[in-house]
C-alpha cells in the first residue's frame, strides 16, 4: 500500500484551477519528484497535502488514514514533515533550539511547563545537526546563518520531527551550484540513512534526475506524465511543454 495516496485533489483560486484532479501514489522509501513549469500547481499541491489550504475536492490518505483538510498541526503529527520554499526557521533562536523544538514537538512535549529545556534531547539534536553539517553552528543565532545553512537548518528541523514522509518545496531554490550539490547529497544521504520517503518539487533538472526514483510532471494544475527518470526524459509531451526549454 502506498504511504501517501492522493485522489482527485482539486483547488481553485477564483477562475484559476491551480490543482485540478490530481492523483498521486508515493510508495514507502521512494524519492519522488514533482516537476512542471511555474504555475503548474506544485506548491499548491504541497499546501493541500500539508493542510495549509483546504481542498475543494478529492482526498489525501496518509499511512492508511484519511487526513484530507486536517489542520496543519494534525498532519505534522501524523508524520508529514515539510521544508519550505521560502526559508522558514525561528530566526531569533539558536540553531540548537530550532532543531530542539522539532524534537519537543515530535515527543509531544511542547506543552510541558516544568523542567529545564536547555539540555533536553541535546544528544539527538546534536546528531541531527551533525548530519546536516551544522554542528559547529549550534550556538549561533539562526537568523545570522547563510542562506544555504538556513535551508539545511530547515531540513534539520523537519528531520527532528522524525517524519515518515518529507516534503521538500524547491530545496535548492536560490542556491549556488556547489550549495545545490551539497544540499542534495545531504538529502539523499539522510533519506537513505533514515529510510525516509521524500516528495519534492524542484526546478533544477540535474537535481531532479539525480535524486528522484520516480517523477510526476504537472502542467496547468493537471498531471501530464508519470514515470521513472528515463521514461520522463523520453516522454514526448513532457519534452514539448517543459524539458524543451529548460534542459538544453
Amino acid at each position, binding site marked *: 500500500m502506498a504511504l501517501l495516496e492522493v485522489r482527485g485533489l482539486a483547488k481553485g483560486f477564483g477562475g484559476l484551477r491551480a490543482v485540478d484532479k490530481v492523483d498521486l501514489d508515493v510508495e514507502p522509501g521512494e524519492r519522488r519528484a514533482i516537476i512542471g513549469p511555474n504555475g503548474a500547481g506544485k506548491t499548491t499541491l504541497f499546501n493541500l497535502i500539508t493542510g495549509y489550504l483546504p481542498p475543494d475536492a478529492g482526498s489525501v490518505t496518509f499511512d492508511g488514514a484519511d487526513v484530507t483538510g486536517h489542520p496543519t498541526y494534525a498532519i*505534522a503529527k501524523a508524520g508529514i514533515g515539510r521544508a519550505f520554499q521560502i526559508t522558514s526557521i525561528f*530566526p531569533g*533562536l539558536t540553531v540548537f533550539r530550532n532543531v530542539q523544538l522539532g524534537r519537543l514537538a515530535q515527543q509531544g512535549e511542547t506543552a510541558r511547563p*516544568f523542567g529545564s529545556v536547555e539540555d533536553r534531547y541535546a544528544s539527538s539534536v*546534536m546528531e541531527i545537526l551533525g548530519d546536516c553539517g551544522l554542528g559547529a553552528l549550534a550556538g549561533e*543565532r539562526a537568523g545570522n546563518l547563510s542562506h544555504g545553512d538556513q535551508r539545511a537548518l530547515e531540513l534539520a528541523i523537519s528531520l527532528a520531527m522524525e517524519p515518515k514522509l518529507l516534503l521538500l518545496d524547491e530545496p535548492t531554490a536560490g542556491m549556488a551550484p556547489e550549495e545545490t550539490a551539497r544540499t542534495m547529497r545531504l538529502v539523499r544521504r539522510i533519506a537513505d540513512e533514515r529510510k525516509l520517503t521524500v516528495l519534492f518539487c524542484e526546478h533544477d533538472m540535474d537535481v531532479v534526475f539525480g535524486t528522484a526514483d520516480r517523477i510526476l510532471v504537472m502542467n496547468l494544475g493537471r498531471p501530464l506524465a508519470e514515470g521513472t527518470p528515463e521514461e520522463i526524459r523520453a516522454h514526448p509531451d513532457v519534452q514539448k511543454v517543459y524539458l524543451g526549454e529548460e534542459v538544453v
Partner: protein
Amino acid sequence: MNRHDAARTGIAGRLSNLRPTGTVWAVLALIGFIAPLFANQRQTYVLMHVLVLAVFATSFNVMLGYTGMVSFAHGAYYGVGAYAVTLLWIHLGWPSLVGFLLAPVIAGAAAYLTGLVALRAVQLYFALLTLALGQLLFVVAFQWRALTRGDDGIHGVALPQLLMPTTNRYYFLLFATAVALAILGAVMRSPFGATLQAIRENGERAGFLGIKVKRYQLASFTLGGAFAGYAGAMFVIMDRGAFPLLMHWTTSAEPIFVTLIGGLNAYIGPTVGALIFGLLQDWITRRFVFWGLILGIVLLVIILRMPGGTVEGVQRLVAWIGRRRDRAPRGEPFDESSQPADAAERPREGAPAGEPTAGGER
C-alpha cells in the same frame, strides 16, 4: 545557554559571560532583603510598589517578550485580582489571604474567557480588541456600584495582625515576589516557554511542527493574566484597597513601560525595569510635577535608540568595555557601527529575542 553550544563555539561562551543573571538575581535578592533596614515608612512603600510592579510587568512579558503578543487588557486582570481580594472580604467576609490565593485563579479565568474572544483577531486588531475588552471590565468595575462601590473604591481591607506592620508586609510581598518570579521563570525555561518563543519567532512554522498556535497563545494570555491578578492581590496587601483605576487601560500601559525600560529580551528585564521605574517615579514626583513628561521622553529615547532596554544597554556596555580592554592601551575611538550587532543580535537562550510583534499568529 546550552552547554553543548558553549563547548563548541567560543561565541556562545562569550555570550554567557555577558549574561551573569544568576549573580544579578542574587544581588537583587540581597538588596531586597536588607533594604527595609535603611528605609523609612515612605521608602518601604516605594519598595513594595517596585515588587508589585516587578510581578505585574514580568507577567506581562510572558506575552510580550516570550509569545510576541501585545495586550492592553493586562491592567484589567490586575484589577480583577485586586477586586477578588477586596470583594471576597467585603461581601463574604473571607480573609484577605484566602482572597490572595484565589486572586490568580479568578484573574486567570477572566483572562481565559476574554482571551478566547480576543484571539479571534490577530496582531494589531488583537491588541485593540484586548483594549475594548479591558475597558469593558473597567466600566463594569466603575459603574456597578452595588458590587464595587464604583469610583470610591474599597479601602481598609483587614489584614492578619502579623501583616499590619509595614516591614512585615514588605517581607510578605518580597516572598510573594520571589515565589511568582521563580514559578514564571521555571515555566519560561521549560519546553513550554521555548514553544512560546517559537510562536513569537514564526507562528506559521510552529504550526507545521504540530503546535496548535492559538491554544498556546491562549495559554500564555491566561498565565500572564493569572499572574497579573496575583500582582493585583499583592497591591491590596500593600495598599489595603482597590479602585477602578487599577483596571483602566492606562494602567495596562504601565507594565509595557516597565518592560521596555528594563528590556523585553531578558527574563530579568521587567524586574530591572520595575526597580528603575519605581524609584525614578518616586524621586521625580516628589521634586517635579511633570513625571509624565519625563517618562514620555525617556520612553521615546528607549524606543528610538535602545529597543532592548536597560539590560541590553548594560550588556553592550560590558561588551564594549571588554573589547576596549582587549585593544591596545591607546584605544581607538568607539566605533558605533561595528559595535552593537554583537550584544544585541546574539541569541538569548531562555530569554526572548528580537523585535516585539503585535499579538496573534502569522
